[in-house]
């Protein structure tokens, strides 16, 4: 079965869905990101947008300007040379976060569920670097993975209707920082005041799929103080071990 990937199929009038192996893993995600990057760099007449996610890439094109079979061949070509596509170097965004209290309504429950103390939950969560698998949902939400197993907690049984933008939380192995006020079923244990999304900039977030995010614990006063800084100021080069 392994050699049948990627799967490709036309979707609606002007898009092709490309799928790599059906799993959430960094090595499969890398293929999706390489394909997206390769397609954007090579580009072709009629290409509108390329959206990579965990294991899938959707290529949007103008069906009046380019034929679906030509797009398919183009994707095959780029895919054939995937290993040669060098992605931009990953960066680590260390985004100061305040934990617990009103900014972390789920901290005590997460502690109870995991058998850790609230301090241990914060210590464990805030010292990890989480890979960005993809951007999307709404307002450039970064889908983070790699939450340690000791912190695996299911989603809330019914989502909260509104969680403030900047809230930091997780469910299962996934984590996120909400870019704007949103409904969510994740467990929120902290909050950052750094804007992770700004529609008046392009791109609206400096975070790219393949980057890493860490949410180091600081006191609320400091979190608010540094919240005025631009997200880009918290980026450093990422040293993978």
């Amino acid at each position, binding site marked *: 079965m392994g050699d049948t990937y990627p799967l490709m*199929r*036309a*979707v*609606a*009038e*002007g*898009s092709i*869905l490309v*799928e790599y192996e*059906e*799993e*959430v893993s960094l090595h499969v995600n890398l293929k999706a990101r390489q394909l*997206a990057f390769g397609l954007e760099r090579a580009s072709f007449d009629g290409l509108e*947008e*390329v*959206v*990579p*996610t*965990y*294991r*899938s*890439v*959707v290529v*949007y094109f103008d*069906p*009046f300007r380019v034929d*679906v079979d030509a797009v398919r061949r183009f994707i095959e070509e780029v895919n054939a040379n995937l290993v040669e596509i060098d992605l931009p170097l990953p960066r680590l965004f260390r985004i100061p976060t305040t934990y617990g209290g009103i900014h972390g309504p789920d901290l005590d429950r997460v502690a109870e569920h995991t058998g850790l103390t609230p301090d241990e939950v914060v210590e464990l969560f805030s010292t990890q670097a989480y890979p960005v698998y*993809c*951007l*999307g*949902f*709404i*307002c*450039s*939400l970064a*889908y983070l993975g790699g939450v340690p197993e000791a912190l695996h907690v299911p989603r809330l049984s019914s989502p909260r209707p509104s969680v403030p933008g900047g809230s930091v939380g997780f469910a299962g192995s996934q984590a996120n920082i909400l*870019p*704007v*006020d*949103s409904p969510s079923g994740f467990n929120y244990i902290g909050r950052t005041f750094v804007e992770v*999304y700004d*529609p*008046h900039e*392009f*791109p*609206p*977030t400096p975070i790219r799929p393949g980057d890493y995010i860490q949410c180091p614990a600081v006191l609320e006063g400091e979190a608010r103080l540094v919240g005025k800084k631009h997200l880009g100021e918290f980026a450093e080069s990422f040293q993978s071990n």
Partner: protein
Amino acid sequence: MKYGIPPSGAMDQRSFVIGNLLLRNPNSAAALETVLQGLKLRALRRVRISITGGDLDPWLNDRPAPQWAAFTMKEGDVLHFKKRKKGLRAYVAAEGGFDVPEVLGSRSTFVRGRIGTVLHKGETLSTCFSDSEAPGDVLTLPQAYRPDFNRTDPIRVLMGPQEDYFTPRGIDTFLNSTYRISPQFDRQAFRTEGPAIEIAKGPGIITDPIPRGAIQVTGDGRPVILLRDAQGTGGYAKIAIVARVEMDFLGQMMPGDTIRFQGIERKTALNLLHEEADRLDKLRELLR
């Protein structure tokens, strides 16, 4: 969409575009979208406008205002949308377009993403064009170009990309049932009420991109139709995608309306899209 920002914009693009064409505006000129009833506008100076889209019973001072038409408001004239009669959204375009800033290459409002705002009582709007030379007479759209908001035939869809997440019986239910648009309703999505679609696996998938018009099926087996302000990625299987030519009609539907689905081939959908583009080109010629 790769930044998780939806295309947004007019929910009924066709009516919006025609509104601009009647004024010889470019397509990028900003117009107002108003829903149901209540919008009241007073002209602070002479301004040429157009009204298109759903019939929300617009009145100009003390008589019904022309619809699907461009006309001139004099200083002090009041335009008032009194009552929803047909469709849901009307468009008011102004000569030159309303003066709103461009964000990310668009003048659309996307409230959740802090792009643009909803208008409030007492606000003043300016247009990008202040000195109308255009004649004041009424320019009416030929009847043949008006969309039919009374239609009851099924909404055409292209099956996939994840129809294999549903049983053959589930697909059959989807294509042969009537669904009612539920009160949970906004510019992001319609939820529907009706027979549950039998699910073969999932319906959770590894989160992937959501093309516009996607029809997701949630855990309760009901279709959810994603509209112009929808999220760019999601984790529910998509049984079908609404044909592009149908999106404008969906933009005029509201809670309580019923909907049926009919599968068509991609080739047919492309032909329909071509015809639609040709029709608008012809209209553009006609109004030039």
